């Protein structure tokens, strides 16, 4: 599989946002409008507008403390936004909880890995598939046929998902005992288990070496192609962001300072200033 993509053209949707050209006849999977949150007197994120196409890989970058993870926490309702609207597949997520938003189709990974350390790798994935398995408490306590049927399907599906990352041999290992890279991959598999339409990856390449990062890039593209879902990722590794993201959003001090394709972002004076400063102050 190659990472080469045809040059993407971003086209505007009816709001102030842009999505890739191929997704334009469908509504965006996610649209954030005028999103903002205040912690006491501090405005952490303000006027965040972003649309993501149905099969887009989008990037969210910015210097440390710009508010990238806060945006993720807003989208997944870990924080309730102070202002603005989040439309997921055209549905307003106002007043929903994290679990409800996940059932609507947003899955995420965490910057500091949050696995279920004491459980096996397979159980971690099965927990991700929680809402796709339907056996209730009664059928599991009585071990009714429906329990065995659902467990068998879950087992096969979990191994299938793990095989995406060649992790099926680790299915019985304890999640907490996995090496760092495998834990990051397991988090992605667990998120995929929830059957999302939008996957949020918070620094998926953190702590990885260049060859692992290259493999991860291939895998992210593979996930998008296999599941036909949208992916939004926060990343500091510019080779990854510029290599696979179609649309990039640059955040600084809680404000969007630039949006566009990788080429546009690379040449944007505002972005260069945010990352490197403007020579005059020195």
């Amino acid at each position: 599989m190659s990472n080469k993509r045809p040059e993407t053209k971003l086209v505007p949707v009816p709001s102030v946002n842009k999505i890739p050209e191929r997704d334009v006849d469908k509504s965006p999977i996610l649209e954030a409008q005028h999103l903002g949150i205040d912690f006491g007197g501090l405005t952490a994120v303000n006027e965040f507008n972003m649309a993501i196409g149905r099969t887009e890989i989008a990037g969210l970058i910015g210097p440390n403390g710009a508010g990238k993870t806060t945006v993720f926490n807003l989208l997944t309702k870990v924080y309730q936004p102070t202002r603005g609207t989040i439309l997921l597949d055209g549905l307003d997520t106002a007043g929903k909880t994290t679990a409800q938003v996940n059932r609507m189709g947003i899955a995420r990974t965490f910057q500091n890995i949050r696995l279920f350390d004491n459980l096996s790798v397979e159980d971690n994935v099965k927990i991700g598939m929680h809402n796709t398995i339907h056996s209730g408490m009664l059928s599991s306590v009585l071990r009714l046929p429906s329990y065995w049927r659902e467990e068998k399907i879950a087992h096969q599906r979990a191994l299938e998902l793990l095989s995406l990352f060649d992790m099926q041999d680790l299915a019985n290992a304890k999640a907490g005992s996995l090496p760092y890279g495998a834990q990051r991959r397991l988090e992605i598999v667990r998120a995929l288990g929830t059957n999302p339409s939008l996957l949020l990856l918070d620094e998926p390449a953190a702590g990885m070496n260049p060859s692992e990062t290259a493999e991860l890039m291939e895998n992210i593209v593979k996930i998008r192609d296999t599941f036909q879902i949208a992916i939004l990722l926060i990343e500091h590794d510019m080779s990854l962001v510029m290599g696979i993201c179609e649309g990039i959003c640059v955040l600084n001090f809680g404000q969007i300072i630039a949006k566009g394709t990788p080429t546009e972002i690379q040449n944007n004076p505002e972005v260069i200033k945010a990352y490197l400063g403007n020579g005059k102050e020195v």
Partner: protein
Amino acid sequence: MKQYFKTMKTATKVDYATYAGVVLAFVIVMLCQSMGLLSRSITGMLVPICCYICMSLSLNLTVGVLGELSLGHAGFMSVGAFTGIITSMCLSASVSSELVRIVLSLVVGTIFAAVVGLVVGIPVLRLRGDYLAIVTLAFGEIIKDIINCLLVGWDERGLHIALNFDGTKSIDSLGLSENGIEIIKGAQGASGNDRIATFVVGFVLVMITLIVVLNLVRSRTGRAVMAIRDNRIAAESVGINVTKYKLIAFVTSAALAGAAGALFGLNYSSVSAAQFDFNTSILVLVYVVLGGLGNMWGSIIATVVLYVLPEALRQFSDYRMLVYAIVLILVMLATHNPILRSFFTRLFRREKEDGSAVRAVKGGGSHE
């Protein structure tokens, strides 16, 4: 068959071994009893041991699997015991079969304890932090005080219940007819009960509790509960309704404690609320902690050993509890000793190595 056994997961093997162990213990005890090898004091301990095994298994569901501390488990036992006694006494005239009566009493005790667990759990389990410990601690005391002022009687007109909060009422104020039965007499508790609990019923209850707990843990529901224990935020992020699953685990735990309580109540001719105090809750917690959090067979063994131990130590007379405490400390030191642990790990490794690709890949990283 052999192939099937090989492909089974370690957890499943442990489950089956636990069932087999309990059945084996039951068979041995029954054989000894039929041959007359058991003394009266041991025979008298059989049913309470079954009750306490159910208690520690159910508490292990809250403390070990859900990861929330409950300090009022005896409160649920108490609810089960007294509702069970009331049911059994009310039915004593109309239902002649003791087995039917005891089953009905256990069911009623279970239901009432579950309802009380739901009432306690709904507000508390929405909170994050150690609030459950505080609230269950208070709950245990409140239940004790309420039952201390409870007056219950039964006659042809039905059940009479009065609460003696101001100390002015007595059992006579219920106005029972001549052949009415006085069931609960305030602080005296319930006395003159039929002792209909048997060891066989106790064994069946232990098996049911074990099956419910183990099957729950190895299911979708149990995985969700353990996910909440391990990482609440991640559990929410994969769409698990945290309050719902905390409540399921806690109410199941309370219901099983209610069943254990009902059996306990039906084993004694006289039961008072003071028996189900904070010390009882802590006693069960000690069984669970020493047996290992989340480890069901550990709970069973710890319960049996620690229940029998004080009796076995009678020869030390006054120093009995002192020796008991020393034994507890020694067990704790032994189970947390890294040298002993690694010894046991080495002992069991050979069995674990076969057919597990994990070890080959991981180079021996994970031990359970």
